[in-house]
């Protein structure tokens, strides 16, 4: 038995410059937060991204800043600002850019915002009785409505038109009924006319407008959890990142599928499709739909010619999937000629066999690692049991956090390893980058990559073996030995993963000339947890939001904030209704007292409150 004083604590073993977070109990929570924060390396990362959770409750507040920016700069009403933002996908910077390039008038007319200065001023009472040119009825001028574009129809026809459009899923772009009129209808008029007829549809209209901030916005996305947790995630900065929602769902922000780095989104999409060839749904979607080139929703062709229009308004060619204009004349064909025959068909048959062998090679290894990952998840239970036994043992070692840290490292690196196989399949295959690299270059790079992959693989297997050992039966010296190995291996593996990502980013993907593939940067701690609104924020901030919230609602003339919010708030008694774990519900209920998390705060402020 070694000398008492010489007994090393776990914190002595770790290398200080690595700042890896293997902490013993003696550190308090605060210090741990600071260290975790440092380890995340947000400060030194150049391609940083900060994510935050938008719940149903904070959705309204989240939109306000973007709306306010546009309203102030362009002196617009809230509804016009919303129309503009919906059209330009809530990209404020792009609107500012286009304002310079195109000028105000063009910017407005393209989005369907009516320029108020051009409005023809005539009093409605001048036509009495008024003949509505939709239903051809003579009606009194008290039941007609003139839209801002100057077109005037009876309220009955307007209401019918709105309801048809809302039911058709076009709430965000209800255009005027006049032929070729591009103007978007005044949302206040839609609201009042529709709610008089059918409050349910009016409420749906309201909700769809509100959710536009998520659905028409490249920086905000719904959490893809099933059943849906009701949250959306907003990312500031680089959108190539992997995030974790407060519901525990980890996903790639870019494509919303599971976190798949170091595969790029395209590689992962191709890989998943390849792996589930037999899946009927995917088959149906690939056969019958094409993704819209603007919003990427799958679009089904329901008749008509090959010029297809997506619900988002984008027109595209059904044959090649490329975006086109809507206008075409006899002589000028907007866009493209997609009827050209590509003659690589012939060679494909010969190489099909080789290609299949190659796929099987990578798929088997990918599968082996994902299977190991599944089995190792069971290991967690076993290890917790072993720790419990060890901690009750009469021993000098009381801290077993290194086991769990090692296990988490194992999970993360196992995941990286499994995704590195589909990556290699596409990186060094012909499918994506055939023209990018010469065969010699490919060989060279493949060797470099495979060396790194092998190194990582052997270390991961070693770690897995160490963690599976029955350390609860070991003597103290053996446990110490085991602990040292686990901690050292963990930091080696972490470094290797980082190196592999750097190699992929700098040596493999960066030199590509034609294709652009981006991957989420390596995070030593796994996908970043999105910050959620919490009681840590100061009271002043909450009051601030209350004021913003109140004033905004008044401006839009909509129902009182309390009423509006209650439509989206899950009732606190219905546990599990949203399919969330009990811990998550508890957190949410706690935070309902504090009104709203201000998503408009600059990132630094949010970060500070975490430290």
């Amino acid at each position, binding site marked *: 038995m070694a000398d008492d004083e010489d007994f090393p604590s776990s914190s002595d073993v770790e290398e200080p410059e690595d700042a890896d977070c293997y902490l013993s109990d003696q550190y308090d929570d605060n210090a741990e937060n600071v260290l975790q924060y440092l380890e995340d390396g947000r400060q030194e990362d150049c391609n940083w991204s900060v994510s935050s959770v938008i719940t149903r409750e904070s959705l309204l507040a989240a939109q306000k800043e973007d709306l306010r920016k546009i309203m102030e700069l362009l002196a617009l009403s809230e509804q016009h600002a919303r129309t503009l933002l919906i059209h330009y996908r809530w990209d404020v910077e792009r609107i500012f850019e286009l304002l310079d390039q195109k000028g105000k008038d063009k910017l407005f007319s393209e989005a369907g915002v009516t320029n108020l200065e051009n409005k023809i001023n005539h009093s409605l009472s001048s036509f009495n009785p008024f003949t509505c*040119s939709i239903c051809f009825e003579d009606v009194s001028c008290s039941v007609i409505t003139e839209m801002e574009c100057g077109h005037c129809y009876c309220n009955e*026809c307007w209401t019918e038109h709105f309801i048809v459009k809302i039911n058709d899923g076009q709430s965000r772009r209800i255009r005027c009924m006049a*032929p070729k*009129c591009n103007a978007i209808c005044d949302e206040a008029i839609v609201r009042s006319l529709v709610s008089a007829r059918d409050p349910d549809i009016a409420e749906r209209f309201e909700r769809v407008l509100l959710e536009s901030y998520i659905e028409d916005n490249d920086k905000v996305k719904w959490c893809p959890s099933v059943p849906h947790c009701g949250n959306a995630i907003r990312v500031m900065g680089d959108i190539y990142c992997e995030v974790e929602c407060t519901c525990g769902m980890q996903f790639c922000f870019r494509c919303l599928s599971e976190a798949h780095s170091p595969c790029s989104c395209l590689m992962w999409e191709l890989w998943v499709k390849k792996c589930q060839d037999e899946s009927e749904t995917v088959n149906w979607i690939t056969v019958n739909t094409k993704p819209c080139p603007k919003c990427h929703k799958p679009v089904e062709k329901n008749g008509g010619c090959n010029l297809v229009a997506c619900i988002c308004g984008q027109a595209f060619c059904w044959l090649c999937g490329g975006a086109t204009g809507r206008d075409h004349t006899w002589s000028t064909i*907007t866009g493209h000629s997609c009827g050209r025959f590509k003659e690589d068909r012939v060679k494909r048959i010969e190489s099909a066999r080789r290609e299949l062998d190659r796929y099987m090679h990578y798929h088997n290894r990918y599968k082996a690692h994902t299977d190991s990952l599944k089995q190792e998840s069971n290991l967690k239970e076993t290890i917790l049991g072993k720790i419990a036994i060890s901690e009750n043992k009469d021993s000098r070692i009381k801290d077993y956090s290194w086991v769990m840290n090692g296990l988490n490292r194992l999970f993360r690196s196992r995941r990286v390893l499994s995704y590195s196989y589909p990556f290699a399949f596409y990186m060094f295959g012909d499918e994506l980058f055939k023209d990018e690299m010469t065969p010699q270059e490919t060989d060279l790079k493949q060797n470099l990559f495979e060396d790194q992959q092998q190194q990582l693989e052997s270390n991961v297997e070693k770690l897995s073996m160490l963690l599976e050992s029955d350390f609860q039966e070991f003597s103290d010296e053996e446990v110490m030995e085991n602990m040292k190995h686990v901690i050292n291996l963990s930091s080696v593996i972490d470094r290797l993963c980082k190196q592999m990502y750097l190699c992929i980013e700098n040596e493999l993907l960066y030199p590509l000339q034609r294709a652009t593939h981006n991957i989420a940067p390596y995070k030593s701690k796994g996908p970043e947890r999105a910050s959620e609104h919490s009681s840590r924020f100061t009271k002043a901030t909450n009051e601030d939001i209350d004021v913003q919230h109140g004033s905004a609602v008044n401006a839009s003339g909509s129902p009182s904030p309390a009423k509006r919010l209650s439509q989206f708030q899950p009732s606190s008694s219905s546990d599990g209704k949203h399919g969330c774990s009990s811990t998550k519900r508890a957190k949410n209920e706690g935070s309902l007292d504090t009104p709203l998390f201000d998503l408009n705060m600059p990132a630094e402020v949010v970060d500070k409150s975490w430290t």
Partner: protein
Amino acid sequence: MITLLHDYQASRARLFKEYKEVQREKSADPDIQLVCDDSNIFKWTALIKGPSETPYEGGVFQLAFSIPEQYPLLPPQVRFLTKIFHPNVHFKTGEICLDILKNAWSPAWTLQSVCRAIIALMAHPEPDSPLNCDSGNLLRSGDIRGYYSMARMYTRLAAMPKKG
């Protein structure tokens, strides 16, 4: 149910008005002859004359209108009953690809104006969005003569009274 009934009545009333308008201005547009089905106001047929200086000149083409209950908020479905060789008309079914019958529909259009738009489409085909690829390809490759003679042949065969 109430909404449905309401739509139904609104569309019926509007179609009735259109019917009266058509009767009143029968001579206003001699190229178009709109007829409503005797027993069903949601079924219409139209006879339109092929526009002059086109391969369709001299032909009379029959259109079938099927009107949805939510008309005029939704567009009528129109197809050619007479065979026609045109890039934007399906050769077998007679389906027409015309923006105002799809997403550019406005409730202010009438059956009469739809007919006028179809006549305009006959005079100005849009070969980039073809339903009839053979016809579209002839035009896209610049073979105006080939297109013209094919269209002319089908006009003679299908849209003109048989000689003798």
